[in-house]
């Protein structure tokens, strides 16, 4: 049994592509199995390329492809 992470506020889910209602419900189901929150709002940002960005209260959890590419870029530069 996975322990849920409690978030007191609403959550904003940012994806690279617009999701229809069914897709949103699917994603929301996944979200609810990992996080506990009141409500979720979906937004679209094509610059993140893929993955997801979760924003709540004063925090942003960036799990986007854009961030991963930036990390790869930074590690390449440091090397």
């Amino acid at each position, binding site marked *: 049994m*996975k*322990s849920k*992470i409690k978030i007191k506020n609403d959550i904003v*889910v940012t*994806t*690279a*592509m617009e*999701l229809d209602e069914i*897709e949103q419900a*699917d*994603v929301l189901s*996944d*979200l609810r199995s*990992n*996080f506990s929150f009141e409500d979720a709002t979906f937004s679209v940002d*094509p610059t993140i*390329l*893929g*993955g*997801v*960005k*979760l924003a709540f209260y004063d925090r942003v*959890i960036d*799990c*986007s*492809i*854009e961030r991963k*590419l*930036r990390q*790869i*870029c930074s590690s*390449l*530069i440091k*090397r």
Partner: protein
Amino acid sequence: MSLLNPIYLLLHALNFIVLALILRKLLYKPVKKLMKKRDELVAVQEQKLMQADADISKRRKELEEDIEKSEQKLRSEQTAALADISKKANAILAKSQEEAEQIINEGRANVGRERQSALMNLDIMISELAVEIAGKLIKTQLSKDEQIALVKEGIKEAHLLEK
């Protein structure tokens, strides 16, 4: 015949003796005395000359010694001056060499830094370009299902990050 008269002969002899005595008294003795005095004077003068000659020789020797000392001192000073100049020249040369080496090292370091900076810039450009290309490829080649799968993976990852 009168000349051979013994009385005349005697008178002549007496006259000669008287004349000789007078001459001896009045001329020979003073002349001899004068000559003796002159000889003494000459001897004194010679003595003085010899003394003067000795003095001159002594003075000359002293002067030669002085000259020799002066020359020796001059040579010594010259040698010291040459050594000093040589030392200064060597110091200047060493300093110049050091400065030149420093300039060369700084130049090498600058070249190294420039090279490093250029390589770094190149790395950044290549990395950014690679990321940009990768981004474009991902954007164009990901299907909707793949995008949703990535979203789900992202949610799992976010959960792990927040744990």
